[in-house]
């Protein structure tokens, strides 16, 4: 882990703004060394012990996840803690949580791309990968949370002999479209952006297997002008397509709640509030992954402290948005003079699940305030702690919304409680296993930094002087 020693400027610290000078995005690299540094990671023939250890651990958790899913499908939804009135529990919380995590990637790639934020290049590849893996984790849950999993495909508008269509009025159906579209576009965007780098790997590959695989994936990329021209155009179009999706997917997810009539769900603030929350936790997850990755794989000069600093600023900003949303919800609950609405929020803060609400507030609103201090924004340990807290907080935000609202709605006779079972808890843990398994495979076999894009934002090498630079 990098540390900052007072008085002496860390050579890798590019967080200081010097007037008249643009801070370097990449430190101390030339084109060749960047390629070497990134591709070298994917080209190692043997993985490190640490990787195997981490991979073994995550893969076991993934195995546990599938065991839990198997048990669930074999036995029934009753193995979870859901009941009447709390018909949705961990599964939906996890779904919204993972979809939220999956926001940062596309935001970084698409929106920051359109906004010409060049600093995105160092982090976009693995942020996008993270997005895809998170959406995979998320996508698992709506599938398994239905009572009859084997019929879940009925949610898709597949022409059938019964002429039965899904109910297009249902927000769950909108969800199906929103998430599947988002996943498709994100995956496409990620893959298209990776083609030049895959070609590099192909060219550098020594073994036949790698040559064939990377060759197939690179789709005959030769780096010709025409290739570059088409590539850039496609990338721009995909970015333009992905940008509204970043906003729409979590807005649509929020409609699951907002379009219902349950107090605490039926709220117009949900779409922007969900999007802000998603960006918030998505960036926290990127930070959480970036800090160890850059330390372990010697990428501190590519994913610089300035990148982390920027992301922490975004975390701080979105934290304030989320905090604002929390307070506005309370204001509106009071201002509406709707007793059910008012109670729903008072119950969050003071009811049986108040601990969940206050975990949410402290993690999401209070913890990120430390990022007002640059010292915290640039402290790897500090930011990892905050990032973890933010992810806990955001998970609890969904817990608060889903469980607390449902547990006490209109009729006091039907108020209930929700207690997760061991299956719920192990499934949640298992979903992290799946996420990290996929991520570990990614850092092992795929260029984790968009080399071609990084080169585009590096200083142009001067002829014959590169070696000395």
């Amino acid at each position, binding site marked *: 882990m990098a540390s900052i020693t007072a008085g002496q400027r860390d050579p890798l610290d590019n967080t200081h703004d010097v007037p008249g000078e643009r801070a370097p995005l990449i430190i101390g690299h030339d084109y060749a060394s960047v390629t070497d540094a990134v591709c070298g990671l994917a080209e190692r023939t043997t993985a490190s012990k640490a990787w195997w250890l981490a991979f073994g651990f995550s893969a076991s958790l993934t195995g546990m996840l599938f065991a839990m899913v198997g048990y669930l499908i074999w*036995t*029934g*939804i*009753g193995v979870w*803690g*859901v*009941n*009447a*009135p*709390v*018909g*949705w529990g961990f599964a939906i919380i996890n779904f919204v949580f993972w979809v939220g995590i999956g926001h940062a990637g596309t935001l970084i790639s698409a929106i920051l791309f359109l906004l010409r934020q060049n600093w995105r290049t160092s982090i976009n590849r693995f942020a996008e990968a993270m997005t895809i893996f998170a959406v995979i984790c998320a996508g698992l849950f709506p599938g398994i*949370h*239905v*009572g*009859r*999993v084997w*019929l*879940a495909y*009925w*949610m898709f508008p597949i022409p059938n002999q019964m002429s*039965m*269509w*899904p*109910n297009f*009025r*249902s*927000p*769950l*159906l909108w969800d*199906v479209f929103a998430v599947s579209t988002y996943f498709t576009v994100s995956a496409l965007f990620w893959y298209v952006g990776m083609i030049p780098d895959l070609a590099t790997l192909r060219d550098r590959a020594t073994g036949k297997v790698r040559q064939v695989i990377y060759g197939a994936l690179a789709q005959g990329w030769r780096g010709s002008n025409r290739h570059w021209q088409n590539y850039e155009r496609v990338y721009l179009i995909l970015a333009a397509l992905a940008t509204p999706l970043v906003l729409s997917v979590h807005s649509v997810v929020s409609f*699951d709640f907002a*379009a*219902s*009539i*349950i107090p605490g769900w039926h709220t117009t603030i949900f779409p922007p509030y969900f999007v802000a929350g998603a960006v918030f936790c998505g960036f926290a997850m990127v930070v959480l992954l970036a800090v160890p990755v850059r330390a372990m794989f010697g990428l501190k000069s590519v994913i610089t402290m300035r990148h982390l600093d920027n992301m922490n600023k975004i975390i701080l900003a979105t934290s304030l948005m989320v905090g604002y949303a929390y307070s506005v919800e309370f204001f509106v609950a009071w201002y509406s003079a709707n*007793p059910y609405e008012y*109670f729903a929020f*008072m*119950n969050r803060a*003071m*009811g*049986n699940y108040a601990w969940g609400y206050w975990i949410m507030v402290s993690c999401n609103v209070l913890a990120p305030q430390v990022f007002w201090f640059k010292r915290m924004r640039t402290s790897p340990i500090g930011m990892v702690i905050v990032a973890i807290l933010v992810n806990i907080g955001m998970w609890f935000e969904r817990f608060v919304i889903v469980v607390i609202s*449902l547990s*006490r*709605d*209109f*009729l*006091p*006779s*039907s*108020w*209930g*409680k929700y*207690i997760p079972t061991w299956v719920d808890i192990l499934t949640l843990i298992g979903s992290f296993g799946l996420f990290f398994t996929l991520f570990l495979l990614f850092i092992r076999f795929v260029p984790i930094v968009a080399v071609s894009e990084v080169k585009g934002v590096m200083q142009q090498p001067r002829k014959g002087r590169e070696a000395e630079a």
Partner: protein
Amino acid sequence: MSSMKHDDTSVPEYWRSLDELADSDDFRTFVENEFPASADQMLTPASRRNFLKLMGASMALAGMTACRWPSEEILPFSERPEGFVPGTPRHFATAMQISGVASGVVVSSYDGRPVKIEGNELHPDSLGSTGLLAQASLLELYDPDRSDHVCRKGTDGVETSEWAAFDAFADEHFAAQAANGGRELRVLAGADGSPTLQRMRRHFAERFPAAAWVEYEAISRDNIRQGGRLAFGRDLRPHWALDHASVIVSFDDDFLAQHPNAVRYARDFVAGRKTDDDHHDAFNRLYVVEGCHTMTGSVADRRIPVDTHSIAAYVGCVAAHLFLEAGLQLPAGVGSLRQTLEGFRSHALYASIDASLIVDLMAHRGASLLAVGPGQPAEIHALVGVLNMALGNIGKTLTFTAESDANRPHHVDAIAGLVEEMQSGQVDTLVILEGNPLYDAPADLNFASALEKVGTVIRAGRYVDETSAVADWHLPLAHYLETWGDARGYRGTYSVTQPLIDPLRNGRSAIEILATLVGEATGGYDAVKSTFAQQIGDEAWRGALHDGLVRDSELATTQPGQLADGWVSSLSSFATAAEAGYRVVFLTDARVRDGRFANNGWLQEVPDSVTKLTWDNAALVGVATAKAIGVKHGQMLRVEHGGHSLELPVYILPGQAPETIGVALGYGRRHGGQIATDAGFDAYPLRTREAMAWAAVQVQPMAGSFKLATTQNHWAIDPIGTDTTEERVPILVHEIDIKDLHGGHDDHGEGGGGHGSHEVNLWQPHEYEGYKWGMTIDLNDCTGCNVCIVACQSENNIPVVGRDEVIRGREMHWIRVDRYFQGDADAPSISFQPVTCHHCENAPCEQVCPVAATVHDAEGLNVMVYNRCIGTRYCANNCPYKVRRFNYFNNHLDQSPMETMIYNPQVSKRSRGVMEKCTFCTQRIAAAKITAGNEDRKIRDGEVVPACAQACPTRAITFGDLNDEGSRVLAKQKDPRAYAMLEELNVRPRLRYLSRVRNPGHSEAGHGAGEA
């Protein structure tokens, strides 16, 4: 075919293991050890004869038809019997007897399987409704735990046996008993009103003149009989005309739940509370003085919590007020009462007597009614008899019939006498017909040790329970739907009980068993028919079978007779204040009663009216008492009385009288089925002869706690929850004071009324052109008895989920009865509100289902398409009334073929992963449509009655077509009291409630009842 050859040597023999094939001696001994009863069968190679026997049996099971015929054998149909259409229900009228009192039922039977029990409209004690137990008795018919063979105690443990073996034994044994006149023969039986059984008893007495017949019921009403005997000198059965009573006072009498005639009395009670113009002058007022919360107390206009053991004194104080101060004339014959009542003036309760009670009683002489609970001492019953007479109620609101079996000893004395004889070795043979004395006899009698001194114990019971487990012979007793029998209603209505199915568990009726005892070889049918011929006349037989009763066969009322005052002096023992200290009050549970219905899953899972507790009993204590003892909800409490102790969880129930701990009897069974033995805590060890109603106890809080399964308040409510509940209840459950109802202003209560149109629609609402189904529930009529829940469960194949799932909040009932407390925690009022699917026209559930599995039909029903449902549970989340139920597991797994016979074939069983909810009994609507369609007409009002409405004793639920101008449901929806719950959500429910009307009167004297 002709070429088929049978070569014996080539027929393969089936074998189950190599050992069997070898037919070794080892294997023979193994089979004999493993299956002693069927060793024979298993060792005989499968023969053609055996095969045909087996096939015959399975055909019989498959094709069993409604056996109205006396014939004992059952044959498969090779020709369809006349008038029988497979798959269509046939209805048979019969009667169910509980503790000697019958109520008329009509049983629907599909292809020989009884699947639904409903009330018999012709029966005066039923009027078409049923109680909880009658509804649930169907489940017992198919209970796999019911014993299915004769057992006898052998040298090493219980062996299975055969009826033939018992018959042979009985012939010999009872002939020997008859030789000495039955001197050492005793029969212990429960109360039974069957005329045939009584006739057989006479035969029994002839054959065994020296034998004795002992009647015992753990939950006995003998104090009432005894009270009549004290006051009027004879055994009388009181009958009430509740619809004619303007002031009803119940002293610890839960007559709406516990009275043998509760179904009829509930109807009469609400008949006196009608608000339409014809009736509103006669709106009755109910006072209930009670220690523990009861259903009757919950619907009271004034509920006065008094410790159960002080209620005797309370009655004395009321009598003192009436006779000594209000100037009520003492009837002739009890002159000494005045003197005794003087003693009550100094009682602490004297000053606290509700003044309006006295004023009301004085103002409504001849139109009031005082009732005392069967747990209160006989003297108090006598005193209330005097009060009723003095108030002029006798002959008006109160009449009497003579009790049969006059002058028999009190149940407690009877069993005590029997035990004494048993202990002294005077009893050689004890026949126990039903009853379960080893479980429910007074603890101080030590029935078990007395039983060891009896030579032969023969027990007939439906289950191998505590008593059967130690008996020498256990005989399986048939269910009332399996055998011929007869019974009399509370008023004496004569019913014939006819079998709908051959005994599923190889049982015989008590009549048949008794016939064996007296050496008669008559079958149940002949015995019943000959009794009928003697008592009613043969020509009425077919009519009685059709109607399920003999019309106008109620017993004639009788004059109570002259008052006697020999008992008066013993009243003074109640005039001194009782010692302070905790008392356990033994409550009668409306579901398991004395424990005999404990193995019934429907009953175990239907919540208690007030506590909403399922699957267990608990120590019910008031808020202040719990604080004084130092126990929390769910904490274990140890109660001790007479050397016996009991540990059970505490349930804190607002409104329990101080120092009163209510514990329901009938739980904590040790034998008698899987369900029974798993439920609750046995309170009988605390119950002694001296303390049959309540016992002074020492209490001690224990460290452990227990998870109680309730269907409401699944966990302790925090302050914010409690406050909000209190704010919301008046919005959800509208209640009006009678004086406001007719006070001229029709804007009643907060959020009330709602009959103006506040609807705002962005689109043209759907027009319903054909039928437009709707429902009303009159909260004023609901007594919270829960029978609608079980009726619905039976009609709609609703599974039982068990205690753990109820704790999780996954009970499946489609209709529930919400219970809310209001007001002071020490004396709250209770409101009931049945909630079922509201069939919203603008249904929130329909919009959110991604696969359109819940949709609206053209008649406005919110229908649930089980086949289409994938189980997202979104609909349940979005339902503001929370009436949707999800199948978290396959709730129909591991059921034996017999258990599955109970299912209503008109209703789909739901698989796991599927949502379900109330359908307004759509199958009944469909059936009515077919009938109406065949007759080329529309469905008439009242032709479709959902199961809940059908069973409801008070007819609180009305269902019908809102497009029919003349329908009752439309009239009720237009009633000024009608309102929709959560109307402001604009879901436009088809179910509307009618507000409850209370008639509390005013505390200041001078405002009598009915003045409004």
